[in-house]
């Protein structure tokens, strides 16, 4: 038989252990119950896919950031059809508003004035006579 003091100590230890166990349970159980439900009902089935996407993304960024990677910063030489293109589009067609021949790359600024829209356009009522008369 152990001495009363030792009894007390082991009792106290046991009690403390019990209390700790209960506290731990109360903290864990709610979360465990919720997560258990989510897992059993299959509501988290995409976690693997999501993590895979994140991993691929991180990998991609690392590869692109690599200065030895030539693909990222290369200027265009030819497109996939073997064509080259000037910095200002050179195709020429007729403006559907005034009928003049316009270079593609300058069509938008022309059209803006031609249609009388935008800040830089002059506020003029009739379009057709103006377009024909103006000498740009």
């Amino acid at each position, binding site marked *: 038989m152990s001495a009363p003091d030792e009894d007390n100590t082991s009792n106290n230890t046991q009690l403390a252990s019990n209390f700790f166990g209960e506290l731990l349970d109360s903290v864990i159980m709610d979360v465990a119950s919720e997560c258990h439900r989510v897992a059993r009902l299959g509501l988290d089935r995409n976690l693997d896919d999501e993590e895979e996407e994140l991993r691929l993304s991180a990998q991609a960024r690392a590869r692109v950031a690599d200065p030895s990677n030539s693909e990222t910063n290369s200027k265009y030489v030819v497109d*996939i059809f073997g064509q080259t293109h000037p910095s200002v589009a050179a195709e020429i067609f007729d403006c*559907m508003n005034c009928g003049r021949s316009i270079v593609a790359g300058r069509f938008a600024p022309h059209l803006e004035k031609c249609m009388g829209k935008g800040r830089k356009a002059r506020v003029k009522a009739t379009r057709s006579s103006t377009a024909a008369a103006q000498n740009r």
Partner: protein
Amino acid sequence: MSSNSDHQNHRRRPYVSNQQRQSTAVIVPTPCSHLTEFKAGRGETAFGRCGACGKGPPRLYACVSCAAVVCGVHAPDHEHQIAIDVDRAELFCCSCGDQVYDRDFDSAVVLLQTAAATLGGCNSLCTPPPESIRKRRRVDYRPWTPDSKERALLGTHSSLLPGNNEDLSPNSNFPVGLKGLNNLGNTCFMNSVLQALLHTPPLRNYFLSDRHNRFVCQQKNGVNHNKNDRKNKNSQRLCLACDADALFSAVFSGDRKPYSPAKFLYSWWQHAGNLASYEQQDAHEFFISMLDGIHEKVDKDERKPHSQGSGDCCIAHRVFSGILRSDVMCTACGFTSTTYDPCVDISLDLVPTHEVPTKTLHSCNGKAETVNSGISTLLGCLDRFTRPERLGSDQKFFCQQCQVRQESLKQMSIRKLPLVSCFHIKRFEHSPIRKMSRKVDRYLQFPFSLDMSPYLSSSILRSRFGNRSFGFEGDGKDPDCSNESTSEFELFAVVTHSGKLDAGHYSTYLRLSNQWYKCDDAWVTQVNENIVRAAQGYMMFYVQKMLYYKASGTS
């Protein structure tokens, strides 16, 4: 309280909530002798103690067979197996020592919880969506190839476009429809969106299968073909759908020279006058404006119903329109007000840096990789978009049940997913107060495959009720409601913006036959998928993995 009954009949008392009616002091009635006897010696835990050891709450289980109450320790000893975890309203199998699940139980719990939370009103579950009663049968996708009779028809009524012969240049190895678009002067905002739309499968199919024939449309509306008659030019019918048809025909012709979408620009500026100026526009604004243009013109012609949510009005809405559900819940009584609104895209705020969670992945060999510490993700933005948001005290919502303005919670969810989901990332912040704008360059991770089911109204509602499995608004029986099979999406186009706010450049990455191409105005180049993953996404386009076709006719 003396009250004249006659007086009461003449004057109608205003409705007051239960809360306001209760006085502060609660009377506890005198117990009967039987109750007193029962409680003697049992103390506070008279109504909830383990039958074996007398342990009180919490963590007690109530047997469903005999109504005995046991604690966790004595549960395995009990003669019956199934019990209810009283704290969590979960079924517990005493034999397995594990939580188990049942649909009927969940339904019962939800109904009880809702009744308790909303003081008797189960309105958030019972609100029917304001849509057409007409049921639409969904038909599964079946691939089609022409039979011999159809082949003969194809042979006699059509001719191969030049450049499509198989023995010609390697250009034919690239997908048809891949073609550069000339920059007409700061029009990359338009080119980038057009490239995405040209390769939006349902939209592409619609125009390429001649569903909006521009010649027929123009003929029907009596367009004057006399080019020299300038005066009549102004009455020339504007139809963005016709211009789109012309664009599709040109781009899918097989010719690889870049196309100048001049007529399209002209038409669009006529439609969206306020945006017509020679300066860089916002690609997203153009996208919305263009869909609106197609809707407006087609709608007037066909006289179809205007309801955007059902997508019956025009091809633009048929492809892009979804339905958002907005729930506003009173924090006092639980009453929920639900509204539905159609949307053609979802604009997402970039999650503020301090809110981004850090994630640690553990690889197989046990080493912890800290991946994506603080990286914003599209899913994170969607989580944020659908999370319950507490409306400020200055935005109190009038609760119909309480009859006063109360603080409330607002939560968004997706009732119906569109065929094509466009996500717009709000990278351009315009501050009218500070009179300045800025661009947010922060990287956003976006997946190539996307499952939208966690953001559906059914999922959000389910999680609001503790992830219970219960019948929700005709779960699966309602054809308008999205279910799991239609919530899987694949990325097919990404519009990116590089550079500064006012001196930037838009380009588009396209995914065709699982190969990525970069469309930078006139330049079309092939790129590795890593480039796309690492790119700064501004608008991401996803299409439903399993395309389905609406059965026509039957009501």
